[in-house]
């Protein structure tokens, strides 16, 4: 009775279950095939469901979630077809389970296909069903993708020989047992690569690679992040395409400024300008995305009776955002953007220029130097802040820490993974504190300016101004708390154990470095 005994097989498309059973002289009855139903599997662009072994499927207004093999599938109604923006997912058990996983990303159709099911019953001499088979004929939507047949074999309790005989026969006729991850195989058959995109840097460098070559390799990988995400920004499916695009732009700028003297100065200057432009032109849109994503938490900061008063702020932000999106899309469709990418791509694929001072230096040596220098800078600045706390230097420290983080990520493959993981983890804690401080300052300023200098067409109502003021107050209290946390967090970061580890990994060797 329970489905845990069901087996799955892939049957080559050149035969059918009926043909196989007929050839092997089984007695069976075949029902007429069911309706052909369009179906699609779903995931976020960065494969968040896949990362935890989950799958989601949409068919006929029903959204189904498959968690671990052996768990029961969960279903809910979802009348409109995908993509599902996270805020548009109808309420239900599936969206509750998905929310913490997909967060602000949309669920996109990744493997659309048409499925037809045919039920076949193998019979004994009393015409009792001894094995139930369901033949799923799957036609992936992308053109020129072959049809698949997935055979579900459900044994009937008390008839084990029949199940074994049918299994043996199917296998003899070319059926292969499907693995527990058969839906991943289905995704591949539909032309997508599960887990194929992530915004993490996973490249492998070798210690003695010339620095210029290694840096170009790194930058080519980062460029993919820009190229892959850019087309989706205009489609406005979720906010993270723009975010990942900007992360790649920032990484590019960080590499250009932190990995020194590997490229000719002119080139570096040109490209720094180009990518600075790409960063600037997307700033406003990203800021507005972040504020709108935080809308619920803003509401929670206010007493309930003030909730209605803050809504005009969000309406205003939404209008601003629509306009900012139009600007970004126009820019990306303009002339300058493709020129930048073309020029950059040509540069990255051009042969190495050995002239710059560090161009031929082994990349490990250069990496160590830059990382060590940046780390010492942080320790020095942080110690100064412990004695003389001030906001301006906290902001500075955040930028320095960010650069160190990029360097650690760029060159992680050159150093022991466990150590790197530990250092990055420690740095992240410091960065989170400094980042939170920065976020709070920025939001306070933004709200203040919006309230006093940038109302929509007319001045804000008294209630709305009051509500914005209340938010500023909450943020300021948060700022005080975050600043107070800094000392303990920095002390931990610069603890002797960590300092020793940094020294062990990155302290300069006796060879000359730039």
């Amino acid at each position: 009775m329970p489905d845990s005994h069901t087996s799955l097989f892939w049957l080559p498309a050149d035969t059918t279950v009926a043909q196989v059973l007929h050839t092997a002289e089984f007695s069976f009855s075949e029902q007429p095939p069911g309706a052909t139903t369009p179906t699609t599997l779903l995931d976020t662009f960065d494969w968040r469901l896949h990362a935890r072994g989950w799958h989601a499927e949409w068919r006929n207004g029903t959204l189904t979630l498959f968690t671990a093999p052996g768990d029961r599938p969960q279903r809910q109604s979802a009348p409109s077809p995908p993509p599902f923006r996270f805020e548009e997912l109808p309420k239900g058990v599936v969206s509750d389970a998905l929310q913490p996983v997909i967060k602000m990303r949309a669920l996109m159709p990744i493997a659309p296909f048409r499925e037809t099911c045919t039920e076949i019953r193998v019979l004994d001499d009393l015409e009792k069903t001894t094995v139930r088979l369901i033949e799923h004929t799957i036609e992936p939507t992308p053109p020129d993708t072959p049809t698949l047949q997935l055979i579900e074999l459900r044994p009937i309790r008390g008839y084990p020989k029949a199940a074994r005989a049918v299994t043996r026969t199917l296998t003899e006729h070319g059926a292969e047992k499907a693995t527990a991850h058969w839906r991943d195989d289905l995704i591949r058959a539909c032309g997508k690569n599960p887990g194929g995109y992530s915004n993490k840097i996973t490249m492998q460098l070798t210690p003695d690679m010339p620095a210029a070559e290694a840096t170009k390799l790194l930058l080519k990988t980062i460029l993919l992040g820009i190229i892959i995400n850019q087309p989706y920004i205009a489609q406005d499916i979720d906010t993270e395409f723009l975010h990942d695009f900007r992360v790649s732009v920032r990484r590019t700028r960080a590499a250009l400024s932190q990995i020194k003297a590997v490229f000719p100065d002119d080139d570096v200057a040109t490209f720094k300008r180009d990518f600075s432009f790409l960063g600037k032109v997307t700033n406003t849109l990203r800021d507005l995305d972040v504020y709108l994503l935080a809308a619920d938490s803003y509401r929670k900061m206010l007493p309930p009776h003030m909730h209605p008063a803050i809504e005009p702020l969000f309406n205003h932000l939404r209008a601003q955002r629509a306009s900012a999106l139009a600007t970004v899309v126009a820019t990306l469709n303009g002339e300058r953007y493709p020129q930048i990418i073309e020029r950059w791509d040509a540069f990255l694929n051009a042969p190495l220029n050995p002239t710059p001072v560090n161009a031929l230096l082994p990349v490990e040596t250069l990496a160590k130097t830059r990382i060590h220098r940046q780390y010492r800078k942080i320790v020095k600045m942080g110690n100064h802040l412990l004695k003389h706390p001030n906001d301006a230097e906290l902001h500075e420290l955040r930028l320095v820490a960010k650069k160190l983080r990029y360097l650690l990520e760029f060159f992680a493959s050159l150093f022991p993974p466990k150590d790197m993981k530990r250092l990055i983890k420690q740095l992240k804690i410091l960065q989170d504190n400094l980042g939170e401080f920065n976020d709070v300052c920025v939001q306070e300023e933004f709200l203040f300016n919006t309230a006093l200098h940038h109302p929509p067409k007319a001045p804000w109502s008294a209630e709305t101004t009051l509500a914005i003021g209340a938010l500023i107050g909450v943020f300021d209290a948060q700022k005080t708390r975050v600043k107070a946390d800094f000392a303990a967090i920095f002390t931990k970061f610069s603890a002797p154990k960590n300092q020793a580890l940094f020294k062990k990994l990155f302290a300069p060797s006796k060879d000359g470095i730039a």
Partner: protein
Amino acid sequence: MTILALYSNKGGVGKTAAAVNLAYLAAAQGKRTLICDLDPQGAATFYFRVKPKLKVGVKKYIIGGSALDKSIKGTDFDNLDLLPAAFSLRRLDIAINDMKQARQRLRKMLSPLEKTYDLIVLDSPPTINLVAENIFAAADTILVPIIPTTLSMRAFEQLRGFFKKAAYSQKKLFAFFSMVDRRKNMHRETELAMRESYRRMLDTPIPYLSLVERMGDERQPIPAFAPRSTAAQAYVNLWNELAANTSLSQKT
């Protein structure tokens, strides 16, 4: 887990038809159901197209456990399994007689199945013997089909007397009219008389319908091959009424 026994001390009253159809309806509602054919004639087993064979002898049968589990067969219907009868069950009362706590043996045999099934339906043999006593002790509800004739009324009184004497709870005992032909005076009169004298007479009758006899040809429960028939509806009504009056409507 609930145990429902279909029992009659007379044969040919529509007991197995009721057991099979009610078990099917319970399974269709989502209850994991086992129909246990205790009648060596094996009519329920026949209805489900299962061979009347057991993997074990009658002594091992009543002890239960994994040897018994191997005999259970899935029917063609979701959520519904069958423990078949075999001719060897004619010696079941003799086997039980040799054992300690002779009236509790069936209850002990069925209790490990609690993990797997929400409902067990017992199709009982038409005898009053040690097997019947085991059924009365094990079942949570005993449902007796009665053809409304004078002789049937007498047989039911005999059964009630036996229950009282053996101190089984009368609250477990329900009855319904089966194979009713309202054209017959005797049927109408007996129905009236029995309803007056017995409180746990269910309201729903199962009329005499040729479709019920066709079960033997179709070899399927009626709601499976004739879901919109009067017969199917009658069993649905019977099931609903029984569920409303007992603990059957609760899961496990």
